[in-house]
């Protein structure tokens, strides 16, 4: 599993997540080139949340918003607990972030993959 960035073929704006229409206000592109997104990034802000939704059974999870060197930003889980600080360099990997989903009020097994940020 990989996470991706999406480059508008008309204006070159890079997006994450995927969009149907280019988010550049001066462009109306609808076609994108998909490329893997990951690696070095910078942590802009973070939180440790203790009240998690149905389907998450751990006592807490750390979340962060990161910025990649090309300016693309992403939200994801932070895969460690100690020494988290805004501004620190991280490494974005793709891993399982959820293993249960709710469908019609029933919690069923279904894995979801997304960013997990780790130490460099």
């Amino acid at each position, binding site marked *: 599993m990989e996470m991706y960035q999406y480059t508008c073929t008309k204006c070159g704006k890079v997006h994450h*997540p995927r969009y149907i229409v280019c988010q550049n206000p001066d462009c109306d592109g609808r076609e994108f080139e998909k490329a893997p997104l990951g690696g070095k990034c910078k942590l802009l*802000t973070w*939180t440790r*949340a203790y009240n998690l*939704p149905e389907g998450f059974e751990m006592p807490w999870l750390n979340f962060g918003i990161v910025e990649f060197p090309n300016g693309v930003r992403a*939200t994801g*889980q932070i895969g460690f607990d100690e020494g988290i600080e805004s501004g620190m360099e991280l490494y974005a990997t793709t891993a399982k*972030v959820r293993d249960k989903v709710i469908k019609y009020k029933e919690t069923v097994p279904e894995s979801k993959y997304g960013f997990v940020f780790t130490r460099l």
Partner: protein
Amino acid sequence: MREVGIVGVGHTKFGKTVVPFIDMCCEAALEAMDDAGAKTGRCNHIDQVFVGTMGAGMVQRVSGTASAIVDTLNIRPAMAETVENGPASGGSAIKLGYMAIASGVADCVLVIGGEAMREVTGWEGTDFVATMLHPEAEYPYGLTLPAFAGLFTRLRMDTYGMDSKDLSIVSVKNHANACKNPCAHIQRPVSLERITNPAYIAATNPLVADPLRQFDMCPVSDGAAALLLVAKDKQDEFGFGHKPFIRIAGVGSATDTHVVANRAIPTDLLAVRLSAQKAYKMAGITAEDVDVAELHDAFQILEIAESEETGLFPVGTGHLAAREGRTALTGDMPINTSGGLKAKGHPLGATGVSQVAELVRQLRGEAGERQVPNAKVGLSINFGGFGNNVTATVLKAE
């Protein structure tokens, strides 16, 4: 456009409902109708109902809410639509009510907001609220609204030098206001010392989404509120002439990126700023004309940030205004006289309607112990998603 005003307000006691969802909404509706003197059956003048609710379909397994309420209240064949805009569903319902009358499509509109959230576990409730997050870039991670508020708060703390105590000051103020509001969910005072003392803060005010603690956010509440809107040119004809006409002078709403990370300036609440500016322009006022404001403090950081984005205080100084007591009942810019979402409670779809109900009471001079002297202009901000769809309403006492 026709002038539109509010002649009736209704509000259940927020907290835990003991009646079914539709009954709870009807309780608020009937109070608003009785307040105005509106009749049911053959004498009914309500020709449109808008019901704001976010989760009735998910939590109660009830859909078609507006249709059910019209039938229950015996005000058929009134037009009826349910409005869903997350926690701003109520504000959107008011805006649509205004538009329906102003455009001439309707003459008298009943606006109801309602939510019953305590029927499910906290885990399920947290999940259903989180369904408004981006379905690919946010929701799958287990992110919640409190988690986003934590991310936002840390950024604002880094940018403007505020700290956790500033959030507690807002919380203490709103709890004090709620003690004067019989409809508030939590009518208990809270002392600053109790929720900030490092010796026992972990027990009295535990972390929920670092740096946010329990008293930095609203409780989970059930409740409903309702407003009766009428065209100025129909007020006397429909028998509402005895009630003050609290004019809806301005409405505005605006959207922002669904993915919070993709906002140009992550500490900005652009949709709050734009919606307020639209409502001010329509009302022909500036922020300086506002006498009382109900701001969407689902998290205390939002009251501070919204007080800046709406122009009530300069950017980066909202927390200083709170420290100085300027936003208290006795301050020069009272905010959340109702107790706010923090202590009055936050039944999602009800909140926007509840905020405007409070402003109507303030502008009528009927707010009792929490009355702001000589209030003539009120502002409400109802915040959907994590700021990606916001409504603003400006009321004026005629």
